[in-house]
Every structure is written in structure tokens, then in C-alpha cells.
């Protein structure tokens, strides 16, 4: 599903440049539940941005769903994002003046789906995350956990191939964190590839595979012993 070969990325800082990713190789198959671990500055957010087509890479190859990603203009990137990727952010990133159901329907709007159908699908996903009764609430009227569940529903609405979650529990307490992780696990059990970025050990341990990043290189890539969780 996601295949990365010798990926390099550097950011210019003034006259110098900061080499953030130093030749990553990573292969994530369909249906995997992977977490990227690393402290801040390890390059994990940069990796997510590149994988999420929010940023380009300098060197190496990146295949998404078998398609080689290169020379993307913004329009193509937008279409691919809409088609293949669903985002869940640490700060939820819901549109503040839209209700829960409108937020979920937004990516469908950009797919060109009709209003009624959009509304119907959005309600289905809202029901799936257990917030059907909150459909017409604005994000400011929802709790942190509820906001993140709306964000997950929004990520799912377009039936993407991969869910990219950037510190999905970073702004939540342990109880709601748990609920959100349970939701992600459930989505994964239904066959969705889920890609989580975190710096919290206990969050990473709930995934199937942990990739540890340090200073722009992968230092370990191991399967979590399933029996621990079961």
C-alpha cells in the first residue's frame, strides 16, 4: 500500500539546509496497523506529510497504492488525497463554523457528491463513531474525544485506502485516548490500513507494528506480540 525507498528530505533554513529524512525504507502492506515512534525532531511528522502528500520529497521513491508519486502539482495531489487518504490530526482541525455532520460531509463535497447523499453517508459514519445525537452540534459544543471521533468519521467518509493519524491522542486524556484508539483498532479490523504517528509508548503498543525513528533514520521496525494484547 505504501512503499518508500531511500527517501530523503531536507528543509532550507536560511542559507543552510536541515537534512530531516536520511534515506528511509519502509513498506506498509494493506490492512496493517503501523505506528511511527520517535521523539520530536526525529522526522516523523515530515514522514507523515510526505506520505500524506502534503509535502514533496527530495530523493528516493514513494509508491502509494502502487502509483509512483513524483512531480505532483497541487491539483493532482488534492485528488489523490481525497481518493486514497484520510487525515486525523492532533488538534482535530474541524472547521469551526460547520456542524459535526457538515464537517464529515466536506470531503464528499470535494468529491462532487450530491448534497442528500453526502448527508446520508455523513450520518452513517457519525453513527459509526457513536455520535449520531451530536450531528448538529458545532465543534465548540463537543468534548475533545467527541471532536476526534468526528475527525475520524470525516477521515473515513471518502472510503480511503489509508488513515493517517498524526498524534491522534496528543490532546486527549487517557480515558478518551483509549476510546479513540479502540475506534482506530476497530477500523483496522474492518480492513483499513492505519498509520499512526505518536511519541507515546502505550499508544504505539496498541498497534501491530512499531517503526522507531531517530534523527531521520529507522532504528527499529518490529511486530508487536499480539498475544500481549489479546
Amino acid at each position, binding site marked *: 500500500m505504501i512503499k518508500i525507498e531511500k527517501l530523503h528530505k531536507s528543509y532550507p533554513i536560511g542559507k543552510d539546509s536541515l537534512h530531516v529524512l536520511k534515506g528511509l525504507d519502509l513498506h506498509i502492506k494493506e490492512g496493517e496497523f503501523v505506528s511511527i515512534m520517535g521523539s520530536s525532531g526525529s522526522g516523523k511528522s515530515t514522514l507523515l*506529510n510526505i506520505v*500524506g502528500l*502534503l*509535502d514533496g520529497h527530495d530523493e528516493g521513491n514513494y509508491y502509494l497504492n502502487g502509483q509512483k508519486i513524483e512531480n505532483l502539482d*497541487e*491539483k493532482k495531489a*488534492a*485528488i489523490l*488525497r*481525497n*481518493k486514497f487518504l484520510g*487525515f486525523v*490530526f492532533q*488538534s482535530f*482541525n*474541524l*472547521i*469551526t*463554523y*460547520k456542524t459535526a455532520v*457538515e464537517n464529515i460531509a*466536506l*470531503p464528499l*463535497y*470535494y*468529491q462532487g457528491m450530491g*448534497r442528500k447523499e453526502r448527508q446520508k453517508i455523513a450520518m452513517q459514519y457519525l453513527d459509526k463513531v457513536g455520535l449520531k445525537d451530536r450531528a448538529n452540534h458545532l465543534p465548540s459544543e463537543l468534548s475533545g474525544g467527541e471532536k476526534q471521533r468526528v475527525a475520524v468519521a*470525516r477521515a473515513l467518509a*471518502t472510503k480511503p485506502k489509508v488513515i493517517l493519524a498524526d498524534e491522534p491522542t496528543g490532546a486527549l486524556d487517557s480515558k478518551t485516548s483509549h476510546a479513540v484508539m479502540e475506534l482506530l483498532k476497530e477500523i483496522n479490523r474492518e480492513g483499513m490500513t492505519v498509520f499512526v504517528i505518536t511519541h507515546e509508548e502505550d499508544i504505539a503498543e496498541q498497534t501491530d507494528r512499531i517503526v522507531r525513528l531517530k534523527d531521520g533514520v529507522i532504528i527499529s521496525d518490529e511486530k508487536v506480540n499480539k498475544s500481549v494484547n489479546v
Partner: protein
Amino acid sequence: MNFLFDKDTWQEIYSSIRKNKMRTGITIIGVMWGIFLLVVLLGAAKGVENNFNKLFGNFATNSVFVWAQQTSKPFKGFQEGKSLTLKVSDLESIKSEIKGLEFVVPRHQTQAMAINDFKSGTFGIFGDYPELDKVQKKDMVYGRFINDNDINQKKKVCVIEEEIYKQLFDKDVYPIGAYIKINDINYKVVGMYKEGQIGSGGPQGNIHIPFTTFQQVYNRGDSVGWMMITGKMEYDISQIEADVKLLLRNLHKVHPNDERAFGSFNLGERIAQVTGFLTGMQFLTWFVGIATLIAGVFAIGNILLITVKERTKEIGIRRALGAKPWEIKRQIILESVFLTSIAGALGIIFGGLVLMLIDATIGSGPDAALTNPTVDIPVVIIAAVTLVVLGTLIGLIPAHTAVSIRPIEALREE
């Protein structure tokens, strides 16, 4: 262009506008003010122009008034300070000697009390020929102006201004055929006209009687009070003025360079000055109007730029969710077009209301400062469309800014 008719496009715009009331309000006020000012300015300028047209409109524009004064130079044995009087014979000389004349109309003028029953007033009394009606158009309400028959038979008839009717007659009384008494002589009223704006001889209005009657009643012999001379369109009225005065100096044995012996008032020159003033004022109005519009356009651009800055994150989210750059641009531009159109319409409406208010308060009656202030609808619509188009072009800048920020940077913004 399908998206223009897509309900969803407008739903998006509507919700974005409705949920950002402050921003919407400021944009609308800015644009509305620009259009409002333009409408009121143009209307006011038109009102002033109408006012001038009303003042001069009933005069032939290439006219000059000539009257006799006193000599200021000794000549042919006469001391300076000799009083001069225009004669009827001068008219004939002028008519035969000067080229390019349309009319030469002699007039007499005095002031007297006019009485009707128990009502009276002091008015300007004029001795006139029928030709006056051609030089200074009389807008007759009832009856007629003086005719040749009145002149030939020295009839005791008079034509009155509406103002005099108001003072001497009861309301709703038909004045034609009534008699009013001036200096103990009864004159039959044969006509009434709407008051003009200039050329008023009396403090409270004008009464016109036949020239010949005036000569006889006031014992003026063959003298002429003053004369109105109208030139043909293709002749220069200033040249006619100079020629007439030179001829008069010659006829009356006055020093050829004695400029003060005969006075004159060149209406043509005055009107040319006023026309120049009006042209200048229109230029100023347009200049201010267009400057205001440009300021309005920049205001829109500025607000949109702030808006985009404020919405960076939202735009980032939308793009992460799969909005194409063009879709983002389109929404920003449509929002601006929608807002400016609404604001422009409101500006036109309010401007129109203010003009109506001006019209209702100071826009009518003889003392009106502005007469019938109006703006041409096409002009206003062109202005509004210009504003919208320029606003959109300016709106392209923030729209471009919005999509040039990488979504990842936009999302980082807190």
C-alpha cells in the same frame, strides 16, 4: 461554469458569510460607502447643473443687454459726465448697421404699486415688445404674452408673473380678464407665466405692459430704457456687443474710446463661464467618484487578504480533505463577488434614498439649491459592475496567496 448554478457552491458561500458576520459587515460597509458616495455626488452635481439650466434656460444664450450711462470723457465740446439716453431711432441704426443680429428688443422698466381690490404690492413694471417672448422664453400658465395688436393700439393690458398672481389674487381665482390698477390706471390681465430666475426687475415680481403703452403712460417720448440684443448662433456675441457699443458712441457723439458711456451685460459670456464651471465640477465629481471606487476596491482586496490570513487554517484543512486549488480560489472569488454585488446594490439604494430626501427637502421651489438631483441608471450600473470586477481582480491576489501556502504550513498555524 456549472458550479455557478450548483446549490452546494452557494450553500458553502452562504454558510461562510453567515458565520463570519464581522468580516461580512465590514466588507459590505466599505463597498456600500463607495457606491453610495458616487451616487450622491453624481446626483448632487446633476442637481447643480439642473439648477443652472433652470436659471439660464429661458434666456437665449447669445444675448447681450445694453443700456445708457454717463460719458466719462469730454468729446466734441461736451464735458464728461453727460447723461445719455437710448433712442428708438438707435434701434433702427443698430438693426441696419450690425450684422448677425437675431432680435433687438427695446425695454422700459420702472417700479410701481399694483392694486387689486384690497391687495397690493410694489412690482417691476416693464414696457415690452412681443419679441421679448423669443429672447426670454415665457412659460405661460394662462393666456398669452403681449402681441402686435397691443403695441399698435397702445392697449392697457398686462402680463403678470405667477408670484404677482399669488400676491394680488385669491387662491383659485382665474386672473385672465381681471383688472389690476397701476398708478391709477386699470390694466386688463391677458396672461400669466411661471416665474423665471433672473432678470427680475422688481422686488416681488414682474408685470409686463406693451412698450408703446409704457411710453405714453410714463411719458418717455422716443427714449428706450435698455435693450436686449440677440445674435445669430454663428456670430460671436462679444463682437456684436463691441460693435453695438461703438455704433452707439458714434450716434450719441461720445468719445470712441469711452467704454463707460454705455453699459452692457453679456449673458453669453456669463453662460460660457458657468458652463466651464459645470464642466469643471463634473470632472471633479468623476475624479472623486472614481477615486472613491478605487479606494473601495482596495478596501475589498484588503479585507479579503485579512480574511485569507484568518482562514489559512481552514483552507489548509479543506485542502487536506481534497479541495483542489481552483476550488479554494473559486470560493474566495465568488464570496467577494457576492458580497460586493450585495453591497453595491445596497449603496445604490441608499444613495437613491438620500437623493430622494434631498429632492424632497431642498430640491424644489424657487430657492432650491439642487434641482431634481438624479443619476443615470446605466452610469450607476457601470460603476457597480466596475467595482465588482475590480474587486474580483483584487480578490485574485488573496486567493492566490491562499493556495500558494502549502497545506502543511497552513495546518501548523494555530
